[in-house]
């Protein structure tokens, strides 16, 4: 059911921080294709380049060298504002620390990306409630983050990420702050979204249990892709 043509394509991507003798090369020439509708887990020890790769895939950062094709756009050639517009249109973000606006209701948090899209009040409320409904928090719409549990906060964050019906959902350690029971719930939610809405999910994790929900697992090591495990169906245990 997944579209086999890659919507993300990295070729010879390097990323160097600093200059001269203190320069540090975080990525040393990454080649990676991600098909539309895939559920990808990115794994690797810290310093392996997985976070840098995610920042580039999220259009938050640009490669020092190499090409990054996203839906046919050469992202490495875009400026800051153009990348922001790309994020606004096609990407959704979920963070380890939830990153909701405090003292702001769940609905207002979820509506935020729609505000930047210039949607009117009615559309914002309708789409926001629909997204909250998808994560099962419709009746909590007027609660602030302080009034929600960690799992609920992450659900609100996921609702915010999917409210614009993005092509790609980027999740950076989405279960890192949650206990195992909540973690499984979040992973089931992501799997469900991936299957039903066809959203491509890119997830950084260091927990094999969570990576097990993904269809493809990309292992990073020392700034390079070490190996890619592909499975036919998400949810199957690693042999």
């Amino acid at each position: 059911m997944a579209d086999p043509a890659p919507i993300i394509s990295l070729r010879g991507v390097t990323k160097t921080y600093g200059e001269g003798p203190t320069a540090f090369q975080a990525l040393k020439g990454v080649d990676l294709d991600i098909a539309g509708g895939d559920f990808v887990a990115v794994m690797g020890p810290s310093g392996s380049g997985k976070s840098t790769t995610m920042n580039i895939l999220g259009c938050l950062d640009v490669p020092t060298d190499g090409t990054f094709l996203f839906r046919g756009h050469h992202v490495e050639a875009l400026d800051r504002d153009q990348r922001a517009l790309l994020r606004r249109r096609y990407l959704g973000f979920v963070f380890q620390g939830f990153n909701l606006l405090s003292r702001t209701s769940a609905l207002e948090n979820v509506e935020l990306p729609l505000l930047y899209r210039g949607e009117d009040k009615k559309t914002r409320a309708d789409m926001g409630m629909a997204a909250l409904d998808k994560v099962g928090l419709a009746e909590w719409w007027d609660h602030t983050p302080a009034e929600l549990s960690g799992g609920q906060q992450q659900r609100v964050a996921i609702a915010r990420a999917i409210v614009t019906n993005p092509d790609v959902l980027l999740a950076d350690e989405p279960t890192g702050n949650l206990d195992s029971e909540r973690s499984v719930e979040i992973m089931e939610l992501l799997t469900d979204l991936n299957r039903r809405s066809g959203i491509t999910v890119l997830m950084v994790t260091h927990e094999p249990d969570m990576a097990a929900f993904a269809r493809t697992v990309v292992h990073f090591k020392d700034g390079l892709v070490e190996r890619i495990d592909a499975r036919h169906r998400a949810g199957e245990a690693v042999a």
Partner: protein
Amino acid sequence: MIIGTTFVLAIRSIRRHMLRSFLTTLGIIIGVAAVVTMVTLGNATTAAVQEQISALGTNVLQIRPGQGFGRGGGGPRPPEFDAQDIEALQRQVTGVRAVAPQAQASAIAIYDGANWTTTINGTTNAYFEVQPWQLTAGRTFSPEEEAAGKSVCIIGSTVQQNLFRGGNAVGERIRLGQISCDVIGTLATKGQAGFGGDQDDTVIMPIKTVQRRFTGSQDIRLILVGVDQAYDTQVVQESISDLLRDRRNIEPGEDDNFNIFDTRQISDTLTGTTNLLTSIVATVAGISLIVGGIGIMNIMLVSVTERTREIGIRLAIGAVAREVLLQFLVEAIVLSCLGGLIGLLVAQLAVAALVPVMDVKWIFVPEINVAAFAISAIIGVVFGYFPARRAAALNPIDALRHE
């Protein structure tokens, strides 16, 4: 992004931090309130001073023997004026509307057991032409009364109040010092003079009567000259000066031994003084407005640091730099405009409370209200821009990692 959305974001953010927003605007509130209150009260005071001066009579010249007020220094006492001087001024100077001589004395007025110490002004009917007096009852002097120095008088409202308890006085006979005198008229209330004197505490009699019965000489200490509106007071003043120098045999190069005082000069001087004081106080208040603006910048900078993560989230979900800049800028402008509005309100309340205490009339000055509000808006733009630019320049990755 449309301005409306930025507005929504700014208002939400201000609402989320009510106390901090209020404290931020406090500087602007105080600044605007102080400027508007000071200028409004200053204007009210100036208007009050002008009103009091104009009660003395506009376009009125006061001529006294000697130089300046009083007789400064030694030397011979300069000669007083006499009836011939009055005649000459009336006939020989163009642009003169009326000339009234004045001889003053003090006496106790008594009527039916009530007594009151007052000032007796000896003058002619011209006095009522020179100065804006209104009669509430009775009449002015007849030519025979003036010529013969009859014992008749016209009393001011303060005297009427104290002797007759405000009741009818015309036709009654009062005692003034050693003489008795028929009241032929009563004057309308004029109010306080510019120097704290009560203009209504007066008894007006024919000058001959006063000279004969009270001062005991033909001397005239003060001449009031009403200048025709169509003529320049300055020119008339110079012709009077030339005439009097001639009549008093003053050689060219010698100083005048009389002085001519234009009531408008007092008015201008006092108005100038109150205006100066108003602008000094308003400047100080204006400085507090600037300090208020710096307060806004300070809080906005703190707010940008504190909300770094929030800015990171906004950038990550697709806000462009300009939108973040606009949000923080609009927040600062909304805060300072809100402060401006509250400040205007506080100013009106303060003026309303102070006007009765200061005994002045409230004159609403639209210009200063508009200007103070405009300045508060400008302060929002100027002091909000720097923090806003800083927020917009943040890198989304660093901002998201910020703790």
